[in-house]
């Protein structure tokens, strides 16, 4: 399989997942705003979490709900609309690899967003709009699972999907951390509401309940979302899926090593202690950098990134 085609499958997986999780991110914050007192802080934190603060500040002077939502829905970089647009471009150039219905579905999603984006800007239509996007993304994921061969191309798609999902879950957990800090001075009555919202945004509430009998509390939620091996959106589970996809690919030593190193970090960290000593946010930062390292290793190993760099550097390529 051509490296370029593999890379496009990988990004297709990532962008669909990014669109879905950005919708989840907006949904959790919209819901939190209604429950918690300090709304302005919530929206400022949201932009911070996406890592796009600089881009945001180029376009908007004021951090408020309308601007943040507008940015996450339709900005040129990192928004739901741009993610779907890029997913569509990647699908367009790999049409012979995926079932036709997948291409048609991506198209449908693209046009749905184009025609309905105004509904997402206002609070009254937002929930329905975001739920529809999440549903259409799920439909795509399900369609792929049901109609695409578990071949090399699909491994790359799964790599993209699970790496992106792991990354986005860390960001949504970070929403919890961040709001917790400001709440500390106030009563802890909001604690459970906060984590409930975080769980709901990841469609994790029932599964969490199955797993944890105690009332919803930060310690258990954080541990569940980061370290659970069975829940599909938990970081450890995603890492395991990334590793499984790599196992099916040739010359996989370097990426497997990078994944194992993050898994070791996860296994050896006491996230409850980190949460209670207010160091979880820093830990999540480290985790995100480690996920970026895995991404980089995939590029070197299969997408010819390193080879391309070396080629521009001295005009020759290692023919190994």
């Amino acid at each position, binding site marked *: *399989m*051509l*490296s*370029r085609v593999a890379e496009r499958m990988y990004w297709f997986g990532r962008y669909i997942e990014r669109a879905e999780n950005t919708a989840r991110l907006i949904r959790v914050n919209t819901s939190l705003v209604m429950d918690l007192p300090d709304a302005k802080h919530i929206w400022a934190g949201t932009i911070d979490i996406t890592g796009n603060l600089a881009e945001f500040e180029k376009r908007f002077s004021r951090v408020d709900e309308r601007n943040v939502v507008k940015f996450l829905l339709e900005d040129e970089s990192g928004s739901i609309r741009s993610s779907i647009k890029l997913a569509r471009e990647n699908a*367009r150039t790999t049409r*012979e690899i995926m079932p036709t219905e997948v291409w048609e579905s991506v198209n449908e999603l693209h046009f749905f967003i184009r025609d309905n984006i105004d509904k997402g800007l206002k609070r009254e239509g937002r929930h329905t709009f975001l739920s529809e996007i999440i549903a259409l993304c799920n439909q795509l994921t399900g369609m792929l699972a049901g109609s695409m061969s578990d071949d090399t191309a699909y491994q*790359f798609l799964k790599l993209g999907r699970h790496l992106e999902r792991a990354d986005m879950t860390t960001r949504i957990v970070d929403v919890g951390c961040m709001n917790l800090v400001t709440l500390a001075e106030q009563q802890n009555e909001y604690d459970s509401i906060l984590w409930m919202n975080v769980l709901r945004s990841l469609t994790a509430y029932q599964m969490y309940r199955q797993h944890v009998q105690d009332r919803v509390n930060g310690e258990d939620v954080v541990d569940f979302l980061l370290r659970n091996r069975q829940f599909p959106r938990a970081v450890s589970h995603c890492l395991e899926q990334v590793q499984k996809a790599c196992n099916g*690919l040739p010359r996989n030593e370097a990426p497997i090593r990078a994944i194992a190193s993050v898994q070791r970090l996860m296994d050896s960290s006491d996230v409850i202690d980190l949460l209670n000593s207010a160091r979880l946010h820093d830990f999540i930062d480290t985790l995100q950098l480690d996920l970026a390292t895995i991404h980089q290793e995939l590029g070197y190993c299969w997408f010819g990134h390193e080879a391309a760099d070396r080629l521009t550097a001295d005009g020759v*390529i290692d*023919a190994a």
Partner: protein
Amino acid sequence: MDLTKYPTKADFYDELLTPQNRARQGLQPLASFLKKQTLKQMRERQHNAELAIQTMGITFTVYSEGENIDRQWPFDIIPRIIKQKEWQRIEEGLKQRLTALNLFITDIYNDEKIIRDKRVPRDLLKSSKDYRKECEGVKPLYNSWAHICGTDLVRGGDGEMYVLEDNLRVPSGVSYMLENRKISKQVLPELFERYNIQPMDDYPTQLFDTLSSISPRPADYPEVVVLTPGIYNSAYFEHSFLAQRMGAELVEGSDLVVGDDDCVYMKTVEGLSRVDVIYRRIDDTFLDPEVFNKNSVLGVPGLMRAWRKGNVALANAPGAGVADDKLVYTYVPEMIRYYLGEEPILPNVPSYICSEPTERQHVLQNIENLVVKPANESGGYGMYIGPRETKKRTAEMKRLIKANPRNYIAQPILNLSTVPTLCDSAIEPRHVDLRPFILQGNKSYVTAGGLTRVALVKGSLVVNSSQGGGSKDTWIVAENEPGGSR
């Protein structure tokens, strides 16, 4: 539908009906089929064809208002029929022509015999913008430079087929030819029972065999790839179609590298993998930024080096375009006589060479009745059609010819033949041309028919799909009785 009012004209040849509105000999089944159909039935068949085109995703890309738009492929359901006996002669003529053209290209990049024997003027070639110094001294396998050629044929008012031009660079359209057949099988199945129509589906196989035959490593399964400029190219549909049908990788320039050993490799997830034959669908000047256009991101640095060393085959070979220059075209009958010692089977359209003083004089005096073509353009761009132009454009054209006579040839206006076409309220004649595809590697092959392009606008002679043209399926039919054995 009523064909008695079909407006045939004495000086235009209609492919189906005689000037007396009778079906030409052997073509009665189509004519009587059309007579039995109502307009509503025909429109329904046409609608079904358009639905099929949409579902199959047959598109072409036009660049307009700063945006690339994928348009539905325009198709008219009434086929154009050519009898096998006539086709056999055309087929021989096309093979003869391409053989001579390939010998010519080898000659001018090597011994220059035809120039030394003064059959073709030297400055004709060296002034062609498609002459490539980098090709001098190269002798590709089987002396084949243009492995894939699309030759445009037109039928004049006299009923004779003329060669309008040869496309030796990156001719396109063959995928549409194949898809058109698929659609007409769906919407006109009855007619397939009444005619003995030559199949054409073997083209991708023949193309793969031709490409395999020029592989520098004679292996059972040479690695053949199709090199595309990418998704935004107007012919991307075709690139991906042919790659898929041949079972070859569809690659972009950035997928390929030339190694220290001057061999070409593609980047795969398994590592680098050697490539033997590149069916390239990008122009010469974008092939290799080390040699040609330095800013090209479509090409592969070092590709020309690899090709000159014989480590990779390029189809078509770089420099082949020198022979589809419109001015070189005027010498093709001469080439056939010179290299093959034969008389040309297919005639050229009579042409005036603007760089010859007396002919130029004639062109300038009669320009309003002539078609003037730039020597190095294709796709109908920059063409001047005398009777249709404004005074301003005529003056401009004269100035251009005087300033750069080498760049232009002129031809009389051709009475392009017509084929019945389904229009809004009736079946009307519309002008057509024909592009068959010829392959040449270790052997020659001609498609059974070709892509018939039709000018859908009444009276128009412009058949290019980018400029309002459509297409038709082309049937080569054997003349045994209907129901006969196949």
